[in-house]
């Protein structure tokens, strides 16, 4: 230490990093950024390991992941990488919400917020590009749809799609391009944005330390209101990180990451694309825009998002940081967050669930026997049919043969439902008929 100190004056640097006081009311929500950093490091380590066995070409990517999955440790490392990606998205968003709630984006910390915005976009970019790399159906079609959205940009949409995919379609060239973006460009952007983000926090202190500085300025003794960063607060920080670490390792062990069918550009198996869960809100939102307004959803909404994200410190002119004095900003945020959670939930529950083979049910219950079939087979096109109120509109209670629902699924009236998919089994149709025969009750 002395040797280093003589040359680089490290003790002054260490003092500035560790010696400052932190207010006692600071709690674990103030350490979410630190937890995010931990998960990013976890991503870097597991990502490096994966890069050692992964082969970034359309011919070999899938089989290289398959070979990796065959070994327990390989599968575990991949599960960690996949779970960390989810953790990272969640932690970044929680961190953002906490900073928003505390009003910490306001003067003088606007630049820290901007760098945080870059980190959020970088994180989502990493998640999106990583999805394609295993070259399975899920990744292939999610990427096809995700990149197709860029095509809605007026004027140069086709050009953008072409640049993203390195061609008109998602091909092996896209895979290699995404690989380099995922491995080199985005990590570089994240690191370049993280350094100033972190440096600004060190330089200015967390926003909660401002009250200490003011008290000190007034000549008060702050030792009662604060505890030293090292070791008191640092211990709390590492405790939060430890909890995250345990959750990550345990979840990865219990729910290991699987591998779907290999990517098939001809989609012979009739796979229906769906996004990663954190894009489900956007996916659901798109369903509410009629075709002619799609450009608004796919170009307008992202622009509004970017303006809000990067313009927030200047759009919000209210100088107060106390949550009680910012009713408008907080209400807008609450509405947005609840809306997004609702859309995500709706989007996720609109995906068909696999059905247990039940056979014919003699006296079916709506909730137990009928609704699950509707949810599995019908709601993709008929978003609201799996509610009792809507189902009952399509049946005549007690008269299965006269019910539109039955006529459409047993083929006696065109078009046979579900359109474009396998028909329902005889057992399922009979279960529906029995339920209607029993009076189509909401049981």
């Amino acid at each position, binding site marked *: 230490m002395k040797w280093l100190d003589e040359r680089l004056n490290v003790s002054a640097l260490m003092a500035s990093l560790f010696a400052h006081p932190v207010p006692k009311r600071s709690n674990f929500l103030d350490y979410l950024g630190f937890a995010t950093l931990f998960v990013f490091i976890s991503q870097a380590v597991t990502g490096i390991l994966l890069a050692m066995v992964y082969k970034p070409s359309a011919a070999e990517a899938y089989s290289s992941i398959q070979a990796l999955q065959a070994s327990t440790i390989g599968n575990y490392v991949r599960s960690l990488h996949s779970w960390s990606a989810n953790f990272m998205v969640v932690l970044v968003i929680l961190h953002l919400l906490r900073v928003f709630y505390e009003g910490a984006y306001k003067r003088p910390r606007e630049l820290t917020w901007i760098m945080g915005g870059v980190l959020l976009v970088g994180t989502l970019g990493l998640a999106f590009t990583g999805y394609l790399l295993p070259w399975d159906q899920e990744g292939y079609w999610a990427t*096809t749809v995700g990149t*197709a959205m860029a095509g809605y940009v007026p004027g140069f949409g086709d050009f953008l799609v072409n640049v993203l995919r390195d*061609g008109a*379609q998602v*091909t092996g060239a896209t895979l290699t391009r995404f690989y380099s973006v995922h491995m080199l460009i985005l990590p570089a952007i994240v690191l370049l944005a993280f350094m100033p983000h972190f440096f600004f926090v060190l330089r200015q202190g967390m926003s909660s330390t401002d009250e200490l500085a003011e008290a000190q300025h007034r000549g008060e003794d702050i030792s009662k209101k604060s505890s030293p960063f090292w070791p008191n607060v640092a211990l709390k920080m590492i405790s939060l990180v430890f909890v995250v670490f345990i959750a990550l390792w345990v979840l990865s062990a219990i729910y290991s990451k699987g591998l779907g069918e290999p990517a098939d550009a001809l989609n012979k198996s009739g796979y229906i694309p769906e996004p990663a869960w954190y894009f489900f809100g956007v996916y659901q939102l*798109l369903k509410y825009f009629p075709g002619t307004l*799609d450009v608004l959803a796919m170009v307008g909404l992202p622009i509004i998002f970017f303006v809000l994200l990067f313009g927030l410190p200047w759009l919000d002119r209210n100088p107060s940081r106390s949550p009680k004095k910012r009713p408008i900003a907080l209400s807008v945020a609450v509405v947005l967050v609840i809306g997004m959670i609702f859309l995500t939930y709706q989007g996720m529950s609109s995906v068909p669930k696999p059905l247990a083979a039940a056979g014919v049910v003699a006296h079916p219950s709506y909730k137990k026997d009928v609704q699950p079939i509707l949810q599995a087979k019908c709601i*993709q096109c008929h978003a609201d049919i799996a509610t009792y109120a809507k189902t009952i509109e399509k049946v005549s209670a007690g008269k299965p043969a006269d019910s539109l629902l039955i006529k459409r699924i047993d083929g006696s009236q065109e*078009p046979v439902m579900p359109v474009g998919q396998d028909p329902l089994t005889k057992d399922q149709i009979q279960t529906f008929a029995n339920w209607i025969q029993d009076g189509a009750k909401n049981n």
Partner: protein
Amino acid sequence: MEKSNPKQDAVSLGRRKLLSLGIGTLGVAMGISYLGLFGKFMGPKSVAAATKLQGVGNVGKFPVNTPTLVSYKGAGTDEGVYVINLGSEGFIALDFHCTHLECAVNWVQATKQFICPCHGGLYDIKGTVLSGPPPKPLHRRLVKIEGDNVLIGGRLV
């Protein structure tokens, strides 16, 4: 200490500005060169290679008014194309990507429609939009009959 000469100061100030300008110009020039390199390298390539005609089977393989999915071996991957024998109207070929968000459409013989499973877009046998969000008809692809062979090529713009 030397006494400063106002006239000399002015000269050195001008000199400094010029030097700073020089530093800036050189830096920006180098930066732009790399950006240009990036743009040129990543930019779309010419599509000439993708328009090569490929045989996809005998005319007899395609029954009238029944679209058949065939594979066009594109650069690096299979491209799904529906080949449709319209009888007296001849052959057409349609790219199987929905024009909304490019999910793969399925032909449903019972309703004689192309259906997109993602957001419910519907097209008729010629790829014209019937309902749903798709903004454009299905993309046409080049199709040619040589003797008994059906050949298909790239997208018609």
